[in-house]
């Protein structure tokens, strides 16, 4: 009987899956093959650790992985537990894989982060800002309802992905839904 788990979030299909056992793993392997999952490698930025995650588990080895499909880059983590009494053979108890980014739509960060200006572009920042606010010539792909914490956060992330996004808020200012929540609440949003 095979009791290992594989949980996948969006890296092998556009769904969430958790499978266990021969049949489930076989189906997941077929999905992975169809998705072109390959180039699995240990994530060098994270150490391989040896620990006891729960008393009933005993010793285990945990490691992080990176992988790719033709469409996505993903990352994951797996836990190995001993398969015999010698500590030589170790098998997977849990494997978690998750979509990290879509190829061609990587988040703009680090060196690719927007600088706020382009070389040779003499348009004043205030004008660019006004155009952005009025969405001049821009057709939004996504509309975010509510400019609270979550709305602002998702809009910022979408902005970093260069996805035109319109945020709508019933209150006059961004963050008002929290600012007006309690009399004693102090908001750091301007």
């Amino acid at each position, binding site marked *: *009987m*095979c*009791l*290992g*788990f*594989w*949980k996948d979030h969006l890296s092998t299909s556009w769904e*969430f899956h958790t499978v266990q*056992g*021969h049949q489930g*793993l*076989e*189906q997941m*392997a*077929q999905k*992975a*093959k169809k998705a072109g*999952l*390959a180039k*699995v*490698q*240990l994530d060098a930025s994270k150490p*391989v*650790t*040896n620990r*006891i*995650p*729960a*008393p*009933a*588990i*005993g*010793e285990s*080895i*945990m*490691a*992080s992985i990176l992988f790719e499909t033709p469409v996505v880059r993903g*990352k*994951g*983590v*797996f*836990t*190995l*537990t*001993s*398969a*015999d*009494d*010698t*500590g*030589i053979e*170790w*098998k*997977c*108890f*849990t*494997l*978690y894989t*998750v979509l990290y980014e879509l190829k061609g739509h990587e988040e703009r960060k680090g060196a690719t982060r927007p600088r706020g200006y382009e070389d040779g572009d003499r348009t004043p920042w205030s004008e660019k800002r006004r155009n952005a606010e009025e969405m001049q010539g821009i057709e939004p792909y996504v509309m975010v309802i509510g400019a609270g914490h979550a709305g602002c956060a998702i809009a910022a992330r979408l902005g970093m992905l260069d996805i035109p996004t319109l945020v709508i808020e019933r209150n006059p200012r961004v963050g008002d839904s929290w600012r007006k929540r*309690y009399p004693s609440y102090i908001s750091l949003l301007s």
Partner: protein
Amino acid sequence: MNTPSIRSEFGYLAFTSRFGSLYSAAVAYSREYVPLASLLKEVYQIELNFRQVSATLKGPGHSCFSCNGSQHYTFRRAMDLPFKVGPIVYQPVQQAAKSGPKPARPITEIAQEWVTHFNTILESGNSKTLSSLFQANGMNLQSLFNLRDLVYI
């Protein structure tokens, strides 16, 4: 009193940092229709009855974020207590560690070997053999260990 659905009521745990990861786990698991209440009971020895809790924990310091104290009550203080508080039973799992074998080889080597085999099976397309890389020893729900390991990286 009926125990409310863990799926509908579990969101209030999000207000406690201690159980923030459990909340995420709850969302993930509820989507997959695993009965979380029994999971919590089995793994963490936590029994929750939210309606009874809100009736019990009235008083200063327990007002709820959402309704400002009129209907619900935060569980932070109750959850942090390692003993019974009213209807909440929170007991850390008291269990001796399983005496399993320690790795006989460098753990990085073992992990790398597993990744290599995983790659080989994926490339070969022989999906029937994938389960040979996974644990076959019988483990019950009790050993589902930290839920965050299944949810987070």
